[in-house]
């Protein structure tokens, strides 16, 4: 089961299981440490009715940094006859948790790259993006085919500290995928990003995406 064992197996998980009438999307929030990935999930958790969300699992260190991963299961109910579930994960951003990141990334149907908009964190963003691409390549995932969205978080900080979404697009988003300015702490851009990545993932269904 993908929820409890994101690291198990080398086979990509199935997005649509026709026999079980079930659609399961795994979306991974990737990015450098302290960029706001867990904050995204926490905001979503706070906005989802209790009946529609599972328990948010967060394994954090005593300094409140994500040690392994965050996991938030969302049950969207039956849509057009398919029981639809979303599983949101974050990876630990700190560079020394590389193996955990690789495991969490396995079988992802879509990735949100959460970048820290602060100008001083640009190199961290670039390093994390390269790390993500390396991990995906190692897993045999075609980065051009995988739905990816960029979220430039902390846009609420003073303008002299941060880069604008256009500048961050220039620096990071060289494939010109969808990108969103965000203030995850207060929810700005959180659902916009989630909706965009979810729709990208679902649109791959009829275009011959992953099926069981």
């Amino acid at each position, binding site marked *: 089961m993908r929820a409890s064992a994101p690291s198990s197996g080398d086979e990509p998980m199935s997005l649509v299981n026709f026999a079980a009438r079930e659609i399961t999307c795994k979306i991974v929030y990737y990015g450098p440490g302290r960029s706001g990935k867990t904050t995204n999930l926490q905001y979503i958790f706070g*906005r989802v009715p209790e009946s529609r969300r599972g328990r948010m699992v967060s394994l954090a260190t005593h300094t409140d940094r994500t040690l392994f991963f965050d996991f938030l299961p969302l049950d969207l109910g039956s849509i057009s006859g398919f029981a639809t579930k979303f599983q949101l994960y974050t990876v630990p951003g700190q560079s020394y948790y590389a193996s955990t990141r690789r495991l969490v990334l396995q079988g992802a149907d879509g990735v949100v790259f959460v970048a820290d908009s602060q100008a001083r964190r640009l190199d961290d963003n670039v390093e994390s993006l390269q790390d993500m691409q390396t991990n995906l390549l190692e897993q045999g995932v075609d980065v051009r085919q995988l739905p990816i969205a960029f979220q430039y978080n902390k846009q609420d900080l003073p303008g002299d500290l941060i880069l604008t979404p256009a500048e961050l697009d220039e620096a990071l988003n060289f494939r010109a995928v969808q990108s969103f300015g965000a203030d995850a702490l207060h929810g700005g851009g959180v659902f916009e990003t989630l909706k965009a990545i979810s*729709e990208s993932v679902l649109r791959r269904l009829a275009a011959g995406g992953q099926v069981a």
Partner: protein
Amino acid sequence: MSPPLNPYFRFDTMVVGAANRLAVTAARAVAETPGAVYNPLFIYAKPGLGKTHLLMAMGHGAKAIDPALSVEYLTLDHFIEAFHAAIASGQGEAYRKRFADVSLLLVDDVQFLTGQREAQAELLRIVDAMQTASRQIVLTSDRPPSEIEALDERLIRRFAGGLVIDISPPDYETKVAILRRKAEERRVTFGPGVLEAVAKLGLDNVRELVGALNRLIAHQAAGDDVPAERVEALLGGGVPASAAAPAAAVEPPPDEFGDFLSDISATLHQQIEAWRGKVAAAILRWEGEGYRTARLEALLDGELARDPEEALREFEADVRKLDALRAEAEQAAPDLAGSPVFRDPGDVPAAAELLEQAKDGAHPPPAPSPVWRLDAVVEAAGNRVAVQAALAAVAEPGEKYNPLVLVGGTGVGKTHLLHGIGTALAARGLRVACLGAEEFTGELIEAIDRDAVAQWRKRYRRADAFLLDDVHLVAEKSRSQDELFLLFNHFLEGGRQMVFSSAVALSQLAGVESRLLTRLEGGLVAELPAPEREIRQKVADRLLCEKVPEVDPEVAAYLAGRPAESVRGVQGLVQRVLSAAEAQQAKLTAGFARSVLECAPARPPRRTAAPRGSGLVAPGTGAARSREKMVWDWPDIGDRLIEEWR
């Protein structure tokens, strides 16, 4: 490349109300007779009122009437993009020619012509060319032509010269109908008054209506109770500012998850519909090419119980396998290539098995026609020997009369008797090969051509009985005679029944090798004479009884007395009388039959002026007819002689 027509956007999926009735009527007229009415047709409406739906529906409608019709749909963006690309690559003329063969051109969103002078000029040229050639062009826009900024006056005049028509926002009833249709499509039911409450929200745009419905579906799927009274509260955040009541000064907190769920539901629904559309399109395609599509239909009926992409790939692969098997079958046994087995991708193993049988010569040879039954043969003194021999051959195949050779003129019942024997033997479980000599020779030639004579022989040698009609037609065909000779020996040695028919007496049969003739004569040669009166009467009686519930026995007696050299001749007489009785709605009596068969056909009007001539009148056809009547009114020769003696 132009975008394809959305399979969902058809006339039958469009809800028609007062607001769009005129536009739909005009669109239907255009789809039925493209180029004949309202050319060009210009439809304008605000976004989300069904312009694109109507445009594509015209494409589908026109294609449904004439599948060969060339229909092209494109948005103005596509049009301009392709135009610029063509100009950049020096292919401007090729771009113009692209539309030369289009019979129905559908251009969406032409409001973007603003500021596109070259594109306007090109469109003007296309409109003129299509009008001149009576080919149809339909355009849509979100505003009337006169309000499209900087639009060439000539284009405005061209559009005005056809029909410019608008679609208004739907009225309340239409909105309810649209919501009901959409809910049905999503297989969702709401409580009483819910959809009516949505329709009252002041959403004029169909897309907004569908969005509101999506939100309700999402709430309902989440287990929330959605009564009519809560509709406004639930959709408060989703109603656009333009439609929201001005009194709603306090903005409710945004339901971000609800919005998310609603959008995701709509996206997923679109994707699933896209799958269904793909499967439906595949069914149309493969049915059109003559393949059975039960497997794909089951997929649609089963609500996509398996991956449609995979199912379509498998189906296509099976079609390719069938094509390959059929191509092989055409080589091995051409008569098999048309078998429905090669058109059913649901059972490829059956096709493969049939091909293997064909290769092995094991597929069944031509069978006797079940239309001719032995018990329907009329037995009389003249054909008694032949009929009894036939019964004996059925009772003890290969034992008593082998071969049995039926000899007689045309239409005396040889083929009937031969197939009757075959049908009776087949009913006993025997594998019967029954065919005509011409077919036999034709198959042999094909087998020689395919270098497959060995398989062809095997096919017949596996039969338990061999029945050949019109054996006299193998005369002068030495290879056919050779093969027949070999088959004859094979069947004789195996004690398996053979039956032949010949229209020529064996003693007079020229061009047939004596080794074959002597073998044919070695069995029982039973003659079938021209049908005597008894047979004619029984045949006439039976045919009449089949058609007329209570027939006068004198009719059959009269018909039996008419001249007929064959059973077929008697059948012809009966048919003439029955047809005349039906046409004139007359009671079928002997007198009526006589009037039909003996009265002269209508004559041309007689000339009033006396013909100029010698004054001598030669005996006409009337005299001959009288004589014939005199002869055939007395059916028995004895009576006839007495009359002549008198």
